[in-house]
């Protein structure tokens, strides 16, 4: 019955190896989701009523007054279907185009390539969503920790249900109220836009300050609309964790309440929040898209809004595709953070 015990170095090596394997598996999963997204992007227009491809070509002809070039036709057909090639061949052509970064041309801003529009908008959204998500997470988790530490207390019985209600406030309405109150009535912030058009873009202090000024309200809106979710999740995890044996033992050790609260309880209770972060990034992005529309913020949301109102299918599709990729990358970051924070490389399926 005596098992030979591997020494610590070996155990550690195996553990970190498992950690890498786990990350590798996650990466594989995300690649799979990306493949699914690329395929959906191919299928959806072909499932839609009418013939989006033909409609597009007509539209291009209307705006330009001349028949679209052969190459444009080929491109549109690859993306939206409707030509004589069989599906498999279409799919291959489509994949080829995607991997070359060719996402077609915008019909509403013909003949700007879609990729140009999308890549101009992407950084704005990534910045806005990234910063506000990190802040909302930090704020929500901190509040959740303190509410959970004193569960049942006065603050808990008020703020926790309040946070539950907060989750049902639509982002865009918060945005509308914020514009109305802070930008119009108080005049503290610009009403719309992402930067001051009178300042030359670049890494000048003025320009950056301008971005902050324009980005403040949209970011605050997103933070306000999302932090409640973190409060509840973190608070519940904190309560659950406080019932654990290692908390009892930490108290028996006579450690200071601060140390128990942070090093023992919060440090463990925060782990599931990172899993939650990975899962909710998609939802936050959705909300951010709507928020951008209200603020006329020059990101993916506004781009999508214009594309939808003008039925600019190529732009719609590209926004979907790139948003998916961005969400997947964010997911992977959240996942890796989790793996860094949790020494157990336990796989929970």
């Amino acid at each position: 019955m005596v098992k030979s015990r591997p020494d610590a170095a070996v155990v550690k090596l195996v553990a970190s190896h498992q950690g890498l394997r786990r990350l590798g598996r996650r990466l594989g999963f995300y690649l799979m989701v990306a493949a699914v997204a690329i395929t959906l992007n191919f299928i959806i227009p072909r499932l839609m009523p009418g013939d989006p491809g033909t409609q597009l070509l007509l539209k291009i002809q209307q705006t330009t007054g001349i028949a679209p070039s052969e190459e444009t036709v080929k491109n549109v057909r690859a993306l939206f279907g409707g030509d004589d090639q069989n599906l498999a061949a279409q799919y291959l052509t489509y994949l080829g185009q995607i991997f070359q970064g060719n996402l077609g041309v915008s019909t509403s801003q013909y003949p700007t390539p879609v990729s140009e529009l999308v890549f101009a908008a992407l950084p704005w959204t990534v910045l806005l969503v990234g910063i506000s998500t990190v802040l909302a997470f930090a704020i929500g988790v901190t509040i959740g920790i303190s509410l959970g530490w004193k569960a049942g207390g006065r603050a808990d019985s008020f703020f926790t249900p309040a946070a539950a209600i907060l989750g049902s406030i639509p982002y865009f309405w918060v945005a509308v109220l914020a514009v109305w109150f802070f930008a119009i009535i108080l005049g503290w912030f610009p009403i719309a836009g992402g930067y001051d058009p009178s300042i030359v873009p670049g890494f000048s202090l003025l320009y950056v300050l301008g971005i902050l000024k324009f980005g403040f309200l949209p970011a605050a809106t997103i933070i306000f609309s999302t932090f409640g979710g973190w409060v509840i999740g973190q608070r519940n995890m904190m309560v659950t964790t406080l019932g654990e044996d290692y908390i009892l033992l930490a108290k028996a050790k006579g450690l200071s309440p601060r140390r128990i609260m942070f090093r023992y309880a919060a440090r463990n209770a925060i782990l599931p929040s990172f899993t939650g972060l990975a899962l909710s990034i998609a939802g936050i992005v959705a909300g951010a898209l709507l928020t951008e529309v209200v603020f006329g913020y020059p990101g993916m949301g506004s781009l999508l809004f214009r594309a939808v109102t003008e039925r600019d299918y190529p732009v719609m599709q590209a926004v979907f595709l790139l948003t998916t990729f961005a969400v997947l990358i964010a997911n992977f970051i959240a996942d890796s953070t989790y793996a860094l924070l949790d020494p157990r490389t336990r796989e929970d399926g």
Partner: protein
Amino acid sequence: MRNALSDRRAQAGLLIALFFTAIAIFGPLINEHVLHQNPLAIDLEAFGQPPSSAHLLGTTSSGQDVLAQLIAGASQSMIAGLVAALLGTAIAIIIGVTAGTLGGRIDSALTAVTNIFLTLPGFALILIVAGYTSNAGPVLIGTIIAVFGWAGGSRALRAQSLSLRNRDFVQASRMIGESRIRVVIVEVLPHLTGWVTVMLLMGFVGGILSEAGLAFLGLSGVDTVSWGTMISQAQAQNALLGGMWWWFAPPGLCIVALGGSVALINFALDQSYNPRLSGLSRGQLNAFQKIKKRVQRTPKSPQSSENVLEISGLTVEYVTDRGNVVACKQVSLNVRRGEIVGLAGESGSGKSTLLTSLVRLDRPPAVTTSGSVLFTDRQGKTTDLVSQSEAELRPLRWTSISLVLQSAMTALNPVMRLGDQFIDVLQTHDTTLSKAAAQKKTHELLKNVGIAPNRSNSYPHEMSGGMRQRATIALALACDPELVVMDEPTTAVDVVMQRQILANVLDLQRKFGFAIVFVTHDLSLLVEIADRIAIMYAGKIIEVAAAEEIWNAPQHPYTVGLRDSFPPLSQTTVSLRGIPGAPPDLRNPPSGCSFHPRCPLKFDGCDRDEPELLQIGETSVACHQYEGANPKEMVIQ
């Protein structure tokens, strides 16, 4: 369920939700017959008017009545919400339960699909699909939302049915050959009601929010009125610059009110399904405060004692909103310096409650309501631990009494290296100790239990179960305590390891001379290691005697039964006789002697008077048989 509905927040939520349901159903009638307004009628005479008696909530910039629009929009939201909730939950149930119940390859495939849908940004998908089908009504929107939003629920349901699959009752119906579908419908689904309800509610909230978002982007039909469209039109037509708050504020408020009401119901349900999450109620907290003040205000002026620990009259109660339950009643027990005292009893006997009380770590809702725990240190200074405040206790902890818990896996902080869990307690109690010195001390402590010093860099999950348990024992000795309380410290390891650990503990005890209170349900094990043994039943100590007396000449009928239900470790001949009946429900304890419903020797009066713990020779016993008798003549066979 009933708990949740008695929650005031849930009631408020339900009321609001019902109100909006009524509006959604009777909206057109109200508009036509009460308000006499057509929500879409354009009235250029009365555009952009603030609230007035003609237009209770004012008009839009094309003179449409805002109130009429709000009322008409209710059904749009409701329908989208309902479709999203019902359809989404249905898909989640089918996929989640199938995956969880069938397992195997089907499970892997379905789980992969679920995870993909969970990760895809559903809203962006919904957007482009809605973008193609320009005139999307609420039913279509609800459907799209359900099709892209079921995955979260499905994941939860899968996990639930997976755990149900291995439970006895499902296994049993499988064994008797019931069809899988029948098993799912009859056995599995009823257990998932809570989850399904939560899913329906959250699906509804998600539905109305997504509908509002899509409508805001102009993706619902052109001439349908919806709260989302109202806000987007208000924004597009400069209601913000014009300060027409009556136009853009009410629809948002309606969304918040409807969504929030459902979220509140969900919140209350959630808390009633996981009572642990709700924490203590206000009533409990107040009762706690009062009790704590009382016990801390009456400090004993303790006399120095030979005993390291003297527990007397210790009573622990569970404070609930429906009255208190006594879990430990008037417990008295002494522990001599360097002595090993065993505390035995079935689960539910109150031994764990007593243990947490004597280390002053009552797990709420348990609270020590009276009695004293006198601790005397080596210098002869005696303290009543019960009357100390939390801050006064802190420096005494671990240096006077330390603790070894049942499962080392859960007793160690999983995200901290083993050594750090030693160093923090060492440095807390000796602030002058340098990190290096603390490290050195840790290595010594680990060496005591046969763990290599380099292990202090390991995380708990990197060690074997036996090593973890030995590590917690080493940890308990870190501050040279005078008493170590051990709660079934060897139940989680195999027999070989159990022997090793016990031998190790006894060695260390001899070497350092600390006393031990060893709590277990395993009487035969106690007989081997303990000097004296106390037996607990229904929250009371019913017999205390030297270990060999307990084994050879138990006095209390319960002790006899307990002894006979264990084979001694050293013998193989077994005549196991369990004790018929079950331990009493402490919420409703039997009258008189709490053992009388199970006692083979009970006689007239046993169910009436409570027996006191009487000192008879070296043995203390609480049983009416011994009142005024000489116990040695009445040894029960």
